[in-house]
Structures are given as structure tokens and as C-alpha cells.
């Protein structure tokens, strides 16, 4: 039994639930049997990958759905071995080069070279393969330049589809060589509707009210919405309109942490918070997500002008966190800063009362 997200993923461009105009355009694009390099971007859970897979299916037929996981080994110039796993069919290969960290350049160069040179396309009439690179925005600049050169070099035997959240971190040289496809997040209504159809298919109709709540809680992330709905189903069937929407444990934990910060502002409390931050980090929650989550929870407890100040410092420390090596310094500095701001605010308020 697979997850609803996978099970109900549309497999052809015709079946997509939203951005239908775009789907028709895409269809037209590949109908010629060819397409330029694509740069697909949009927020997480908007359906970028789904769209790409639909596109490939349109192009190559159902053969692209026969996937296999492979391990590829590369040797860097410094003789270090790196290993990366890919998902591929006969027609395309999907890889997340940022998996290997700073060695991503080697993967880009070698992998695309291999793909471009092994021209073993069997039954299909297409004379190019597709390389799907995910998280292009996480690539190092070095790798992006390598990618740009590779794009020129192997244009005749392979097409690249690049997938990323934002184009801000993609160098202009790459952007200008690709046809940009923006995939906006589905609206709340769209998500609600999809949830209802999926749940119906699963035999446990979801009340509109609950569907709407799930959609709102998912922050317009369809994948999350579907996961949440499924978790709700596990929690209680049949689904009730006033049911609580399940959340992942780490979010609950993060909220508790935020509440701790609100309750008390002292070095001792900060120490406790630090322990919890460490706990979150060991559970693989990325530091910038912790930062954003904390901000989201904390800001609800603030007044207007305070919010501005808090957001500014969050942006400040998040930037450092991105560059620095010890995320905890910056997370902690942010929490300390918030504590100070909040404490001052509370004291002023109390002073006003008297």
C-alpha cells in the first residue's frame, strides 16, 4: 500500500487538476517531439515533479514509469570516491546533485557526460534523453557554471529539466538558456477540492470543513495536505468536520519550544531552549526551518511594531546561519534577541498599567 500522495498522483498532462492552461501549453510544447531545456520552479508541494513526469510520459509513453534505483560512482579529480543514487527509466534519469555536497560539480559533469554518450535508446524514436536535476538552487556556483557548459556541449543528445524552488539562486547564464516554467502553489480551494476527490476515491469522504482546514494548515502545499488528510484518516474514520488535524511531532515540539520562550525570558530558560534546539537538529530538522518555524510561532504573540523588529532580526540571523558553520550560535542569538525584545515589551506594558 502506498501513500495517497503517490497513489493519486496524476500521470498525464490531461489529468492535472489545476493550472490547466499551463498543462495545455506544455502539451503543445512536447507535441513537436522536442523541447528546449526547461527550468521548472515554484514552491514546495506545488506539483513540479508531477508535471515533469507527466511531460515525460507525454513524450516517451508509459515507459518512463518503469523506474529503477541505481547507484552511481564517480571519482573526483582528487581521487575521492563519491556515490550518488539516481532514479531512472530507459528515457530519463533523475538525480539530486546536491546530495553529494560540494562535490556536485563532478556529478553534473560526469553524469551528464555518461548519459549523453551512452546512446542506447531502444524503441523510441527520440534521439535524446532527459536528465532531470532536482534542487538546482542548492548547487554550488561552481557546479552551476559546469552545468551551463554541459548544457551547450550535449544539447544534441540530451535535454535537461531543472527543478528548483526559486530562481534567485540560479545563475542568470542558466536561466537564460532554459525555458522557465513557473508552477504556482495550488490555491486553498483547489487543494480542498483535490482532497475531497482523493478521499472519496479512498472510500472515506472528507467533510468540506475539515478539508478546508487541512488545506489552510498545509500552507498551500498539496503534498502536505494529502499527507495530513491521510494522517487524519488514520486517526479517526469516518472523518468528522471538527476533527483535529494531525501535525508532525516536530512541529508540536517546536511550538512547545516557542511557548517556553514566551513564558519566561532568562538565561536559564535559554539554556533549556538550546537543549530543545539541539534535539530538533538531531532529528534532522534543518536549522533554517527551525528558525522560520520559531518566528512563525513567536510573532503571533507580538504587537505590530514588535513584529517588525523580530522579523528583521530573524532575517539577519537566518542569513548568517546560511553562511556560518555553527547554526546553533545563530539560532540561539535569535532566541536571545527575541527574549530581550519581548521582555522589554512586557515590562513597558506593565509600567503602563500602573
Amino acid at each position, binding site marked *: 500500500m502506498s501513500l495517497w500522495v503517490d497513489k493519486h498522483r496524476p500521470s498525464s498532462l490531461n489529468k492535472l487538476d489545476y493550472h490547466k492552461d499551463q498543462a495545455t*501549453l506544455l502539451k503543445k510544447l512536447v507535441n513537436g517531439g522536442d523541447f528546449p531545456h526547461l527550468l521548472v520552479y515554484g*514552491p514546495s508541494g506545488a506539483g513540479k515533479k508531477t508535471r515533469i513526469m507527466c511531460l515525460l510520459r507525454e513524450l516517451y509513453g508509459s515507459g518512463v514509469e518503469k523506474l529503477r534505483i541505481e547507484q552511481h560512482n564517480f571519482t573526483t579529480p582528487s581521487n575521492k570516491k563519491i556515490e550518488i543514487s539516481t532514479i531512472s527509466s530507459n528515457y530519463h534519469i533523475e538525480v539530486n546533485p546536491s546530495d553529494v555536497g560540494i562535490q556536485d560539480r563532478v556529478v553534473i559533469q560526469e553524469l551528464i557526460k555518461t548519459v549523453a554518450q551512452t546512446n542506447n535508446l531502444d524503441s523510441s524514436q527520440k534521439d535524446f534523453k532527459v536528465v532531470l536535476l532536482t534542487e538546482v538552487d542548492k548547487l554550488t556556483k561552481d557546479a552551476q557554471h559546469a552545468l551551463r557548459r554541459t548544457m551547450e556541449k550535449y544539447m544534441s543528445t540530451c535535454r535537461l529539466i531543472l527543478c528548483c524552488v526559486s530562481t534567485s539562486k540560479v545563475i542568470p547564464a542558466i536561466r537564460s538558456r532554459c525555458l522557465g516554467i513557473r508552477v504556482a502553489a495550488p490555491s486553498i480551494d483547489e487543494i480542498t477540492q483535490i482532497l475531497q476527490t482523493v478521499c472519496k476515491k479512498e472510500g472515506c469522504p472528507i467533510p468540506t470543513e475539515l478539508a478546508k482546514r487541512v488545506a489552510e494548515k498545509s500552507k498551500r502545499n498539496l503534498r502536505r495536505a494529502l499527507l495530513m488528510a491521510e494522517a487524519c484518516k488514520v486517526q479517526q474514520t469516518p472523518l468528522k468536520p471538527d476533527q483535529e488535524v494531525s501535525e508532525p511531532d516536530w512541529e508540536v515540539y517546536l511550538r512547545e519550544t516557542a511557548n517556553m520562550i514566551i513564558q519566561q525570558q532568562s538565561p536559564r530558560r535559554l539554556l533549556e531552549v538550546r537543549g530543545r534546539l539541539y534535539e530538533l537538529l538531531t532529528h534532522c530538522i534543518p536549522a533554517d526551518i527551525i528558525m522560520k518555524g520559531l518566528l512563525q510561532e513567536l510573532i503571533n504573540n507580538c504587537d505590530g511594531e514588535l513584529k517588525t523588529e523580530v522579523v528583521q532580526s530573524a532575517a539577519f540571523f537566518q542569513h548568517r546561519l546560511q553562511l556560518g558553520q555553527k547554526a546553533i550560535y545563530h539560532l540561539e542569538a535569535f532566541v536571545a534577541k527575541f527574549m530581550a525584545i519581548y521582555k522589554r515589551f512586557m515590562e513597558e506594558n506593565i509600567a503602563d498599567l500602573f
Partner: protein
Amino acid sequence: MHPFFKPREAGTTSKDPKSLEAAGSGKGGKSKQKHVPWVEKFRPRSVDEVAYQDEVVAVLKKSLEGSDLPNLLFYGPPGTGKTSTILAAARSLFGAEMMKLRVLELNASDERGINVVREKVKKFAQTTASGTRPDGKPCPPFKIIILDEADSMTAPAQAALRRTMEKESKSTRFCLICNYVSRIIEPIASRCAKFRFKPLADQILTERLQEICEAEKISYDKESIKALIDSSEGDMRKAITYLQSVARLKGDEEVTEADVFEIAGVISDETIDVLIKVCHSNSYEKLEKKVQEVMFEGHSAAQIITQLHDKTVQLDNLSDQQKSVICEKLAVVDKCLMDGADEYLQLMALFTTMMREICR
């Protein structure tokens, strides 16, 4: 099928003719012309066709008449015809056939490193050049080396180049192409005849784009041409590339303004206006919601910042001081984004600053 989206500079690199041929022959001679990148297809064939750069063209033509060329340094914003000009000049000097032998084009960002450049330049410069064409017509007895993006060469590489320039001056002419002349070291700049390329006027761009549309039988409206010009910022190459993408995506349908903006990743004016307006509300909640919405649309923060900057500078209801505060924050945020900071947080930091300034 032919590769549709030839890389931007591909047509101008030396290996390009080969790759074009290879691709073409592989396709069993399908309508070859049709899928060539338009940037190549509509590149000016002769110096006269080069749009808008009258002074440059005039000077260049003079020296062409004398069948001699000094070392050249072309500089100016991207897409103003620098590469086109030198290629056109070379064609008129050598003819289409000889050009392959006589012109070497090096893309500095492709083949980095002093040694590679030096090696290639040396090898090429050492081949002899006779004073006649195969068809018997006279042609100048020298070769041309085009160094594209010369400003991305390191200073040591440029210094090394200077030596080579002196050594091979008898048989070779260099043409350096760059965006910023200030990044070329003085000894090299002083050895070249400098030509500045002006940003293209909208009028020129419009004409050119319309020509192409006619030739390619694209249905378009005025707004879409305007949108193309706006989003390409005077860069002809960009404009043509966008046009081709749009045409490709839309097929036979009419190209609209929205399509162009979509391809170029430009955010609609309304969206930016709404963002500025919400800053007037002095409500954090409203601002947060709006920014989130824009982010959910998948727009890139960098783009928002660029456009916001253009808008802010023109806003009438802000004092200079307010503007300067906002612009400073814009700069900081841009740097942070370059460093890979979170887009949402940076945008919020920017807009809260803006809100504070406006509602002061």
C-alpha cells in the same frame, strides 16, 4: 528534431558550425533553417546591418576599406551587437568560407586558465595566413582572434595576453569583447581601438522584433512587443530569445503580454503595486499574507527586488530620505539573497522596513 534552444552564444563560437552540421545531418536533412536559434538566424550579415551603432560602424567601415584592422576592444551592455559586429566585419573581410580558418573565437568563461588561452592563441596565431582567398580575391593577410567576455579573465591572464598580442601582432588581430572596460587592464586597453556600444533604443528593438515576427509569421500585438522590450532591458539577444520561447510555447496562438512576462519571469505590475500598497496599511498581518501569496505564486525574490527598486525610485509620495533608507535595505537584502538566505524572511525584512518608512 533539431535542438531548438541553441545556447545563446553557441552560434558565435568557433565550434558552432560543426555542431550545427552534425546536428543537421543527424536529422536526415529536415528543414534545417527552421529551428536554428533566431539569435543566429537574424544576426546581421554585414556591418551595415548592425543596428543603431552608427559611429562604430562608420569607423569600422573606414578601416575595412583599407583592408586593415587595428586591435579592437568592444565594450557595452549585453545584447548591443558587439559580437555581431565583429563577425560581420570578419565576413566582409574574408568571406564566409575563409572565416572558419581565419577567425578563432574564445569564450573566456568557457576555457578558463591562462595556459589554455595562451596555448590556443599561440597555436592559432602561428598558422600562416596568405593574402589571397581561395577564389583569388585579395584579402588581408592576418587572422582574427575574438575573445568574448574578456572582462572575466583574471588580471594575470590579461597580462599574459598582452605579451601574446605584441608577439603575434604581425599576423593576428585581436578583438576583445567585454561589458565593462574598467575590468580590462590598462596595457591592453591602450593597445586597442576602443569602441563603445550604446544600449539599443526601444525604437530599434521594436522594429527588429516586428521584422522577426513577420518573418516567422507570429501573431502578436503591440503590448507584447512592448513587454518584450521591457523585460529584456535593451538586450537584443534576450528579447529575441524570449520571443522565440514564447512563440514556441504558444504555437499558432497569439502572443500576449502576459505570456511574455511569464517567460521572462517578470512579475506583473499589479502584483508589485499591491505589495507597495499593502505597505501603506501599516498592518503586519496584511503584509505577511500578501508576501506569502506572492511567494506561493513562485515568483523569485530577486525579481521582486529588481522590480520593486524600479518602482520605489519613481514613487512620488516618498521623500528622498525615505527612499534612501528603503534602497539601502534593498541592497542589503539583495546581498543576503545572493548568499542564499531565505527568501521569505528577507522579503519580510525588506517590506517591514518599507512599511515603517512609509507609515512614519
